[in-house]
C-alpha cells in the first residue's frame, strides 16, 4: 500500500453516502443549483470560477446531449489531493457528477483520469459497477423516470496541458491536447460540440457536502469571496507532509504551523504555475482574492537554492508546453536558459530585466493558462531573492 497521506479528519468522511443526491432529487433541479449558488462554491482546481454559474449556463444552453466531465488530470506539481479523494471518497465524486447531470440535464459523464494514476482505475471501475447495481447510475437513476446517467473512465496519456479544460476535451475527442480559443466555452461548445461542464474532482465532492450539510454551513467558513473548506497537498521541507483540510483564507504562517514547517524560507503556493511566497509575506492569506491555489503547497527550508527551484519549474514548462503558441513554446526555454546563466553567475542586470519583460509578455500573450503562468515562479523568485541569485561565483 501507498503510505497513508491523510492528516487529520476531513469533512468528506462525515458525509452520509447518497445524502447529497437524495436532497437534490427531493426538490426541483433549480433548487439544488440555488443552494450551490448560495454556498459561494468556486472551482477547486485552482481557477476559482463559480461552480453554480458554470452549471447554470450549461443548463440553459440548448442541446439534447450534454456531458459532465470530471477533470482528474491532476498534473500540477505538488498536488496529490485528487489522488486521495479518488482512492478514499470516489462515491462522493460520482455522486457530485450525478447531481451535476441532474442540474444541467446530461446523460453521460466522463472521468478523465491521468495516465500516471492508472493504478486507481480498477478501484474506480468497481465503485461505478456497484453504483450501477444500486441504481445510482444507469436508467432512471434512483427511480427518477427520465433521469438516465452513466459514467465512463477515459485515460489521459501524460500531458500536463490536458488539465486545461479545452485541451482535455480535445484529448477526449482523440486529438492532440492543444487548448482551444475561448470563447466558445465548453458550457455551450464542449465535448463533440455539445454543452459540457468540466469540474475538478474536489469540486464535485464539495457539491455533495453542500447539499447534505447546507449552504449556510459552507458559507460560514472561509472569507467573503472564498467560502468553505479546501483540501491542501502539503509537501517539501516540513515534518508532517500530506493532505489536509483547511478553511479558505488561512495565512501561510498558520498553515506552516499546522504541518510543522516553521522556519521555512519560502513557500510555493499553487504549484509550478503558482507563485513563490517569501518569508516576509507569510502573513498573506490563501484565498482566490489573495494567493489562489488548487491546493499545492511546497515548502522550502532555509538550505534550499531558489535558483534550482526556478530551474526545475522552467524545465517542467519547457517540457510540457504543447508548442502551439509562440510566447510559451519559445519563452519557456529562453527563461530556462536565463536561469542557467544566473547559476553560472553570468547574467547582467540588464539581461535579467529583459528576461522579466519576456515573462510579462508571456503572461499577457500566451494562449492558455499554461503559458500565462509558466513565468510566475521565476518572476516571483527574481523579485524576492535578488541577493541570492545575482553575482554568483560558485559556478556549477
Amino acid at each position, binding site marked *: *500500500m*501507498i*503510505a497513508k*497521506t491523510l492528516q487529520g479528519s476531513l469533512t468528506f468522511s462525515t458525509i452520509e453516502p447518497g445524502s447529497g443526491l437524495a436532497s437534490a432529487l427531493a426538490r426541483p433541479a433549480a433548487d439544488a443549483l440555488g443552494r450551490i449558488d448560495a454556498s459561494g462554491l468556486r472551482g477547486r482546481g485552482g481557477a476559482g470560477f463559480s461552480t453554480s454559474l458554470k452549471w447554470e449556463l450549461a443548463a440553459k444552453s440548448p442541446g439534447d446531449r450534454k456531458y459532465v466531465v470530471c477533470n482528474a488530470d*491532476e*498534473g*500540477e*506539481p*505538488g*498536488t*496529490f489531493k*485528487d*489522488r486521495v479523494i479518488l482512492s478514499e471518497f470516489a462515491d462522493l465524486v460520482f455522486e457530485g457528477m450525478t447531481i451535476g447531470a441532474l442540474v444541467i440535464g446530461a446523460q453521460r459523464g466522463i472521468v478523465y483520469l*491521468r*495516465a*500516471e*494514476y*492508472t*493504478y486507481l*482505475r*480498477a478501484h474506480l471501475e468497481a465503485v461505478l459497477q456497484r453504483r450501477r447495481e444500486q441504481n445510482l447510475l444507469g436508467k432512471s437513476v434512483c427511480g427518477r423516470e427520465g433521469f438516465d446517467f452513466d459514467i465512463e473512465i*477515459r*485515460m*489521459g*496519456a*501524460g*500531458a*500536463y496541458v490536458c488539465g486545461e479544460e479545452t485541451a482535455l476535451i480535445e*484529448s*477526449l*475527442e*482523440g*486529438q*492532440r*491536447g492543444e487548448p482551444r480559443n475561448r470563447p466558445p466555452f465548453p458550457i455551450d461548445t464542449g465535448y*463533440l460540440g455539445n454543452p459540457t461542464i468540466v469540474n475538478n474532482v474536489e469540486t464535485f465532492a464539495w457539491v455533495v457536502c453542500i447539499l447534505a450539510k447546507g449552504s449556510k454551513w459552507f458559507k460560514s467558513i472561509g472569507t467573503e469571496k472564498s467560502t468553505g473548506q479546501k483540501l491542501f*497537498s*502539503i*509537501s*517539501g*521541507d516540513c515534518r508532517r*507532509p*500530506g*493532505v489536509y483540510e483547511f478553511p479558505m483564507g488561512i495565512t501561510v504562517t498558520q498553515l506552516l504551523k499546522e504541518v510543522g514547517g516553521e522556519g521555512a524560507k519560502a513557500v*510555493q503556493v499553487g504549484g*509550478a504555475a503558482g507563485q513563490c511566497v517569501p518569508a516576509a509575506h507569510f502573513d498573506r492569506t490563501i484565498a482566490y482574492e489573495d494567493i489562489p491555489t488548487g491546493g499545492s503547497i*511546497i515548502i522550502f527550508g532555509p538550505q*534550499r537554492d531558489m535558483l*534550482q*527551484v526556478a530551474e*526545475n*519549474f522552467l*524545465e*517542467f514548462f519547457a*517540457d*510540457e508546453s*504543447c508548442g502551439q503558441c509562440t510566447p510559451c513554446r519559445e519563452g519557456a526555454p529562453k527563461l530556462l536558459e536565463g536561469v542557467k546563466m544566473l547559476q553560472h553567475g553570468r547574467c547582467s542586470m540588464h539581461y535579467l530585466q529583459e528576461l522579466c519583460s519576456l515573462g510579462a509578455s508571456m503572461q499577457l500573450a500566451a494562449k492558455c493558462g499554461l503559458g500565462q503562468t509558466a513565468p510566475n515562479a521565476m518572476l516571483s523568485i527574481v523579485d524576492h531573492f535578488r541577493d541570492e541569485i545575482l553575482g554568483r561565483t560558485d559556478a556549477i
Partner: protein
Amino acid sequence: MLVTERERLRDDLVNMADRFGRDRSALMPILQELKRVHYHISEYSMQVIADLLDIHPVEVYSVVSFYSFLDEKPQGQFVIRLCRTITCEMRGKEHVARQLVNDLGIQFGQTTPDGKFSLGWANCLGMCDQGPALLVNDSIYTQVTPEKVHGILEECRQTFGVHALAGKERAT
C-alpha cells in the same frame, strides 16, 4: 496456414476498433490498448488505425507524438519512469536516477537490448509527500532509495509477463 505477425496485429487492431468504436474519440483508447499489449506503436499499426477510423495516418502520428505515454519507438516490457519534479528532486531523485542508469546499463530515453526495460523521466507523479517516486508500467513505487533500485528491477525480472505487475499499488 501461417499467420504473419502483421496479420495478427491487424486482427488485434480490428478487435480493438470493434470494442472502442470507429469514431475519432476512440483513437486514444485504441492507441493505449495497443501499447499495453504490443509495447510498440509502429508505422504499420498507425496506418491500420487510420484506415479503421477513416482518418489520415498523419493524424494518428500527430497524436502519438504529442503524448509522453505514447511512443513510436519500441518500448521495453517494463517502462520505468522516474519523477523529476521539484519535491522528488529535493528528496534525492538524482541518486536514484544514477543507480537506475548503473544497474540497467542504459541512459534515460533508452531501452535495454533484451527489450525488457525502458528508462525515462516523468513529470510530477502526484506522490510529492513520499518521494522520490517512480512508475513501473502502471505500478507506483514511493520513497525509493538508490539501494532499493536493485530489488525493484529484480522483481520485474522474475515476473513472467507484464500483466503480473499491472494495476497494483506497491510500496517499497
